[in-house]
């Protein structure tokens, strides 16, 4: 176990260093913060609302922001290793593949977490202007972080299917968009026209939409957290299956 943790840490450290060794990290963080500001103040009418809440003006944009930014962060995870041949190097080290899969996921998730934490001025601003519910803000941040992790895990799996980062990016955006859409009101209404209710509910429950919303209004529920964790777990497991196929051929 000790060895496993050491391997995970070693690989994760390299991955995280990889982001900050190149301009990718800084470009990403700047774009993320700029877009957040734009959405919150311009499209979210933060000041005009006159409410000490971040749910509507700030967090409601995250599913859409992440839809493009998270695949951009995760697309290289395996595609680049496959393209450059380092996959062979990595997987002939004395490690189990799951250690590399988990390490890569954690490194990128921590990176997304850093970007998310850097939005803290909006919390300070709100605290200065009014008296927000900090517990709610915490749970909203937690929901946002879990959502980012979910998109990231999906992207990691897609990244393992190809040597081409652009293809990994596009497929990931489409799949993540699907995860949002299947809980979106107009789509579920369309389905309700022909499908039995139980099927509609099932599809709805697979969507990130309602689980994310649960964190935004009224605090987190265990089953919503469980949803995110299980999608992450499933995606990482699928990554290991995909990689086994890649090595075999």
């Amino acid at each position: 176990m000790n060895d496993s943790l050491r391997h995970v840490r070693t690989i994760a450290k390299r991955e995280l260093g990889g982001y900050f060794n190149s301009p990718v990290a800084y470009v990403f963080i700047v774009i993320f913060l700029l877009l957040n500001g734009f959405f919150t103040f311009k499209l979210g009418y933060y000041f005009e609302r006159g409410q000490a809440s971040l749910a509507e003006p700030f967090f409601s944009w995250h599913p859409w922001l992440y839809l493009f930014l998270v695949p951009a962060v995760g697309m290289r995870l395996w595609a680049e290793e496959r393209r450059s041949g380092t996959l062979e190097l990595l997987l002939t080290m004395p490690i189990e593949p799951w250690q590399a899969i988990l390490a890569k996921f954690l490194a990128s998730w921590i990176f997304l977490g850093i970007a998310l934490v850097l939005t803290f001025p909006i919390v300070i601003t709100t605290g200065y202007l009014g008296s927000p519910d900090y517990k709610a803000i915490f749970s909203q941040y937690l929901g946002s972080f879990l959502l980012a992790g979910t998109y990231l895990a999906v992207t990691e799996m897609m990244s393992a299917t190809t040597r081409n980062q652009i293809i990994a990016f596009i497929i990931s955006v489409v799949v993540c968009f699907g995860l949002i859409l299947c809980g979106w009101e107009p789509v579920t209404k369309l389905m309700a026209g022909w499908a039995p209710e139980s099927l509609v509910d099932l599809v709805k429950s697979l969507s990130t939409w309602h689980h994310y919303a649960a964190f935004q209004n009224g605090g987190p529920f265990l089953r919503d957290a469980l949803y995110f964790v299980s999608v992450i777990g499933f995606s990482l497991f699928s990554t290991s299956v995909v990689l086994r196929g890649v090595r075999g051929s």
Partner: protein
Amino acid sequence: MITVENLVKKFGPKAAVNDVSFTVQRGEVLGFLGPNGAGKSTTMRMITGYMPPTSGRVTIGGHDVVEDSIAAKRLVGYLPESAPSYPDMTVEGFLSWTAEMRGLMGNARIDAIRRVSGLCFLDGVLQQSVDTLSKGYRHRTCLAQALIHDPDVLILDEPTDGLDPNQKHEVRQLIKNMGKNKVIVFSTHILEEVEACCSRAIIIDRGQIVANGTPDELKARSDFSGTVTLRVHGVAGETVRTKLSNVAAAGKVTVAGDAAYVNARVFPRNRAISGELANAVARVVASEGWSFDELHTEEGRLDDVFRSITMPDTAKSGA
């Protein structure tokens, strides 16, 4: 140390490696030869545990590379064919990372980096990032990575590819020296490399082993092994042929040449290499009073053997 039993790898219906078996002991340097696409890299990928075999078994130091992969991989240093490394890291950062992956910490890690950067001539570029390096340096960076934990087993896929002649020589010396107390398997398509540093060579073609022996044994399989070459001038070709054909130990005699020089090749009646045939030819030369500037016995050339084994239909016609 390495045991390969009935290894098969199929990609769809096509078998890239078809029933390959061999063993390598400590102290052996095994050269892996074959035309492009013969299955060399695929075999090496299965030995290192990267690629699972379709059937068959590989054990390293008694550990099955599939069942007990971590223990097996610990013993192995591997240089993949394209010598990959992470371009965004410095050479030192990359070596430090591989050392850590191999469980080397603290001073052991610093010593290991110093040792391999000396062995692979990387001292001057340790602080450079990999993507600024020339191909030769990148190649040696990846080689250094394979040596970092001083492994018992080295699997090197074309270790001298992309190096200049001096570097090639250094790497061959390195392989030869390390081979004394390790197991080294390396693939190449440069035949002089096999003669320079292998204690044994395997030739693989279309997924199967077609020859397995010491470089000398392989050379003895050459059609020209044991033949005597003679170059004389001032004598007609036909005369040379007639006189040499009368030598008791001689078989076929071929003659080629122009007005100035005649090149004769005398095949022995039986194939054992000895000085006997050359002596007999020399006596003919002396008694006829021919003036000559070359007379020697061929050991056989590996490239002839290689060609006649891997291209059985066309090679024999060339000479």
